[in-house]
């Protein structure tokens, strides 16, 4: 197990190197940040001076090596746009995104698995058909549309939920949380539902498919024959085996939700990392973009490793050698 984890970590480092290299190559085609930084009326000479002061006059490979060296020391550079450390800017936004993504993944897990089991047990009942039709909608509806529709219905017409922002927050140490106030939770509902819709539909379909397959297995028939209670058969014997792909999927999705909740955050003006990333892309703020992508990669890689470890807990038969 330990060698396995070490091997995965090593792979992770290689992936990070590749990701950062790709970032640097892409930046060459992303527009010139120096133009805005020098100001609208700067002359060509002044633009060159700014370029030099940022170290952007050097060849790409020199910049890249410098970046790696600094990153290895925990220094990801200063944002061009706001001239404060990029990592700090991103970490400041992390709690908002983390709370949003956690709520979204919980919603999708609870409802996705719950409805999935329900549908699998009575596949032809009318409510199952309705749920399946709904899940198709959930998969095919783009996030921005879901978000705008929810805002229009619940915030503008019904006026029962706030349309944007995070509401009242409380500082718990360095962590600014919206989960401890009623206002904060009211603000969380619409964006969390929006963010969870797609994932919910995917998990539902995955659970349903798995459950239908497992429920037809011999060992389930044996379990029924033994006279075990339906709960024991469904949850302990059937669902437990189905959960492996579901947990993998949910884990991968969680990483993605944290890293790329961009659309939802933009629509609800949620002060998270995705919102920052989009602004930074518009303004060609390369240090923030590269730090963000590196962080996203770290999150996704770590979650993958955690999911692998969790497998072993769910199914002791799985061995990593």
């Amino acid at each position, binding site marked *: 197990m330990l060698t396995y984890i070490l091997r995965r970590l090593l792979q992770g480092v290689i992936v990070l190197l590749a990701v950062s290299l790709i970032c640097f190559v892409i930046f060459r*085609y*992303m*527009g*010139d*940040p120096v*133009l*805005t*930084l*020098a*100001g*609208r*009326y*700067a*002359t*060509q*000479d*002044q*633009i060159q*001076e*700014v370029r030099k*002061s940022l170290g952007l006059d050097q060849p790409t490979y020199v910049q890249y090596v410098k970046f790696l060296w600094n990153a290895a020391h925990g220094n990801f550079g200063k944002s061009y*746009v*706001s*001239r*404060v*450390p990029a990592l700090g*800017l991103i970490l*400041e*936004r992390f709690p*908002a995104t983390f709370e949003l993504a956690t709520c979204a993944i919980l919603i999708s897990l609870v409802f996705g698995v719950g409805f999935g089991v329900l549908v699998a047990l009575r596949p032809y009942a009318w409510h199952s058909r309705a749920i399946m039709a709904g899940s198709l909608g959930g998969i095919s509806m783009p996030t921005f549309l879901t978000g*705008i529709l929810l*805002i*229009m219905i619940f*915030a*503008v017409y019904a*006026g029962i939920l*706030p*349309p*944007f*922002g*995070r509401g009242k*927050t409380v500082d718990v140490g360095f962590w*600014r949380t919206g989960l401890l106030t009623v206002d904060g939770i009211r603000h969380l509902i619409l964006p969390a539902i929006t963010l969870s819709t797609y994932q919910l539909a995917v998990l539902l379909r995955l659970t349903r498919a798995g459950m239908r397959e497992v429920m037809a297995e011999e060992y389930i028939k044996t379990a029924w024959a033994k006279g075990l209670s339906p709960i024991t058969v469904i949850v302990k014997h059937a669902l437990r085996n189905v959960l492996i792909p579901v947990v993998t999927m949910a884990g991968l999705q969680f990483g993605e939700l944290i890293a790329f909740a961009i659309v939802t955050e*933009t*629509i*609800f*003006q*949620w*002060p*998270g990392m995705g*919102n*920052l990333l*989009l*602004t930074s892309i*518009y*303004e*060609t703020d390369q240090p923030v973009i590269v730090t963000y992508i590196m962080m996203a990669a770290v999150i996704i890689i770590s979650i993958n490793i955690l999911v692998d470890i969790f497998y072993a807990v769910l199914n002791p038969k799985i061995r990593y050698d």
Partner: protein
Amino acid sequence: MKKLAWMTAIALMTAALVAAGPAAAKSLVVAVDSPPRMMNPHGDDSDAGLSFMANFFDGLLQRKGEDGKLTPALAVKWEHPDALSWKFTLRKGVKFHNGNDFTAADVKFSFERLGSPEVSEFLNTGKQITAIDVIDDYTVVIKTKEPIPWFANNMHQIFIMDKESTEARDPGDVMIKPIGTGAYKLQEWVKGSYVRLTANENYWEGAPPIQSVEIRPITESSTRFAALASGKVEIVTGIPVELYEPVVKNPKLEVVSRPARRSIFLALGNKAGSPMADIRVRKAMYMAINEDEIIEKIMRGHAAPAAQIPDVPTVGYNPDLSRLPYDPATAKKLLAEAGYPDGFTVTLSGPNDRYVQDEKICEAVAKYLAKIGIEVNLDVKPKSIFFSEVAEGTLEFYLIGWFDGTYDMGRTYFKLAHSRDADQGFGGLNGANYSNAELDKLLESTAKIIDPEKRRQTLQRLNKMAMVEQIVWIPLHYQEDLYAIQKGQGIQFDPRPDRWMVYKEIDK
């Protein structure tokens, strides 16, 4: 016993009165379309950024009213003793938010800071200054390398910082905590969420009418509309033309519109031997574009046709200029005369995330030009990439917008129309490499004209040469700024021509 009851009653009433006091304080919630980048007043020369800074800081001068009249602020008087010097007499008794006195040392410090690329986007202004002489605590003379006729016109954008606290603080802290002399102090800035301001009760112009302002940057326009429609905010900036109808139909909301200073136009190259080097071709392209239809269909009526680049209050605006008529038949004839009866092919570039309906306007222009036989390849892209190409000067034909914060067209002409000359720093945003020796000469001659009347006449002459004789650009329209407010709450809001949200000018 009775006495105690009386005393309790009085105490309760006093408490109620005291409690009612702060409740009567006026507050305002505003949703704006772009977030602040930082709280360093020199680090962002965009109007979105200056709009925030203008509340925390003051310039030596300020601009007020419809036509942006230049009026005193931290300086009570300004003089121009010789071509290279600008003398400012400073206001006495002004204090910074931290209690420090405002003096000439702060002015010297702030202007010196402009030249540092680490903290300033006003490099161009900063590098032009050769000396800042502090005559006494309340008199400063600023000397420039070359004569800059519009120097004072820019003084509303250059904000004065407190020398002592800016030097003492960590540079990172200066980026997030503004200490100025402005009408508002920063209470709290939560990035991505809100900026809260409280009134500076000791403001030299008198405390502003609204005590606390909450600014919520909401970049997505439909969410901004939802915020207003659900009553969460009271003023919204940047209503897109496609949301105009829903706002007007909503009985609780009111649209406030203001002709914008920015004009949108097409820039054309004139490389020797290319079709566009022929004035007849330029004229034909101008006449082929149906601007009225662009305004009606694409801008949905929220724009005014332009015959030149500067707007009315700008020095250099020429009231005698008018648009060439829309006349595709004559345009075709002109093309044939110029030797292109079957037209030619040209690439039209433009941004798709910068101006109101920018991409749609480009598409329409391509369609109009196709009608007279000119085949247009559209090359529309995000502004970060587009403006790099403009700066490199590699384009052929492109859409761009401009207005000059100095209200003087001189600086803009040097930047956009003068032949590209890296050594002198001219033509930096002349993206299609337009070059005309006659125009360059006249433009260079204006650099030394300080006399306002003479300057106006020469710039008008230059403007006529550019728009009529040479057709450097094809002007399209002036944009219109659209805001929306909650109706019936007594909000008094007159938008400024420069789109800045200056809260001391708003009341409710």
